[in-house]
């Protein structure tokens, strides 16, 4: 079983992002970068699927600046086997990313490709389904599971994706409930938050990761002439809410809602 997982370098989700005064970008001084949380979940699922199958390989890939290698190393430290770094500077929009991943996939020929449902920097949520279309594959977006993250099934680290007879069964989180699809493999899966709880990289894992193979290529060579067609014209901070008040008790709260805001 060969599984390819995409891993994006993003700003730490605990940092409050601020826009530069001229609106040209965000303030990145002393910024901490992490693996996109959905992609950590994707790596975890891939490791579980590989280990449940008893053999196979998990290849992690990223598109990004030279420093994005750190995020590949994090995924390798979690237990992935090999990395492919597509070097790119500047704005890469989801369609460009999907076209580049298609090239990587054509070379690697995985049985399963797992992406995050969305990158928490651009919040687009597009690459997985775009990639499925470019490849002509089936897609299982928003993969989740019925058991909660505090269940025994999760504690025993079983994969949520059910793979048998060349098909992958995916439980999807949709508006109003859960839906199950069975996909012919190879296929695309994108992760929802409730798919699993990703493991931390162990110290021996981090040491081992330093020696794992990491291949580099250039985006411009993979998809010649591609340019971002989602052009970011400017960034601005969102409208701030004006500060509210604290009320001393329920009686006052009710009075404010009834007579001042007139909402109940």
């Amino acid at each position, binding site marked *: 079983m060969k599984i390819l997982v995409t891993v994006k370098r993003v*700003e730490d*989700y605990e940092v*409050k992002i*601020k826009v530069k005064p001229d609106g040209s970008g*965000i303030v990145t001084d002393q910024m901490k970068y992490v693996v996109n949380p959905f992609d950590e979940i994707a790596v975890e699922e891939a490791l579980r699927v590989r280990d449940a199958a008893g053999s196979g390989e998990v290849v992690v890939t990223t598109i990004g600046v030279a420093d994005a290698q750190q995020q590949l190393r994090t995924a390798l430290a979690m237990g992935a086997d090999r990395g492919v770094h597509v070097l790119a500077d500047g704005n890469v*929009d989801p*369609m460009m990313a*999907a076209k580049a991943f298609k090239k990587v996939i054509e070379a690697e020929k995985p049985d399963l490709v797992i992406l995050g449902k*969305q990158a*928490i*920097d*651009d*919040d*687009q949520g*597009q690459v997985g*389904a775009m990639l*499925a*279309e470019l490849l002509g594959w*089936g897609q299982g*977006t*928003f993969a989740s599971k019925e*058991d*909660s993250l*505090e269940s025994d099934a999760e504690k025993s680290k079983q994969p949520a994706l059910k793979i048998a007879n060349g098909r992958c*069964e995916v439980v999807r*989180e*949709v*508006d109003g*409930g*859960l*839906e*199950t*699809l*069975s*996909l*012919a493999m190879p*296929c695309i899966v994108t992760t929802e*938050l*409730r798919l699993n709880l990703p493991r931390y990289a162990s110290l021996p894992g981090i040491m081992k990761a330093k020696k794992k193979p990491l291949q580099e290529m250039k985006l411009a060579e993979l998809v010649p002439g591609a340019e971002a*067609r*989602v*052009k*970011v*014209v*400017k960034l*601005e*901070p*969102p409208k701030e*809410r004006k*500060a*509210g*008040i*604290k009320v001393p*008790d*329920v009686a006052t*709260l*009710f009075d*404010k809602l009834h007579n001042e805001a007139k*909402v*109940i």
Partner: protein
Amino acid sequence: MSNVLIIVEQAGGKPKKATLAGITFGQQVAQKSGGQVHFLIIGPGASAAASEVAGYGAAKTYVVEGAAFENYLVEACTPAVVTAAKACNASIVAGAATSTTKDLLPRVAARLDAAMASDVTAVVDAKTFKRPMWAGNVTATVELTSNIKVCSVRVAEFDAPAKGGATTATEKLDIAVDAGAMKAKFVGRKEVKSTRPDATTADIVVSGGRGVKSAEGFKIVEQLADSLGAGIGASRAICDAGWVPNDLQIGQTGKIVAPNLYIALGISGAIQHLAGMKSSKTIVAINKDPEAPIFTVADYGLVGDITVEVPQLIEKIKQSR
């Protein structure tokens, strides 16, 4: 001139309420570009739903019916959208952001080689849109430079559409689907049955977080909601814990809501949660920690224990009715 194709979602022959935001978006784009709006409705019941949106000023409504579309699998729906887009010479294809369109529209974009903007919150012109990034900490203005463009539209940011214009003509499109050749097969669905209004379109939403302590403790959220006829929501923490269905999650990676009144009970107010509710008109927070970040966005904050305060509030509401 740019024509717009809006995907109108329906269930049982009725347009879904969330879908109306997409229609409003379409009207705004058409007004700025001088183009026409067209609708596309897919699935069993599409014809009935078409008659319900006939008053919203579309030039035409395309209808795609048949059992092959019952479960909205993207491999069946993508050709339907692309065919309709070509038929009306659309330069923008869009729909309200729901789990169906989030699955479908990027696939449509790839087939049309279109650039896409997700969760659009405002129309600047026929190719330039505003959308949130970094959990709503940043508002980006983006320009889509491809010939055909695809957008999903944030429901909470668009008012209900205006009626107007002549009654819309409908046209049936025949889309051949080879079910045997499809890579995905539908296995089943587990619906969370609810008699309460959907949080994304409800007038009032009451939400609970880890402060409710357990699945049983969430009842207090439901009781307050029912006393107000409100929809319900939850923080990620308690969805992950399995106390409530996942579909209740509100936030950056869950549902986005902007009701008239949002009441947060025992929710700390992490950035990712705020991203899903801070456009609400009036926000109320009840939390026992006076420093909880939720109070920075609350119009009315009450520091207290929800198990004590909420029953009193329910009592007050009942007395007033």
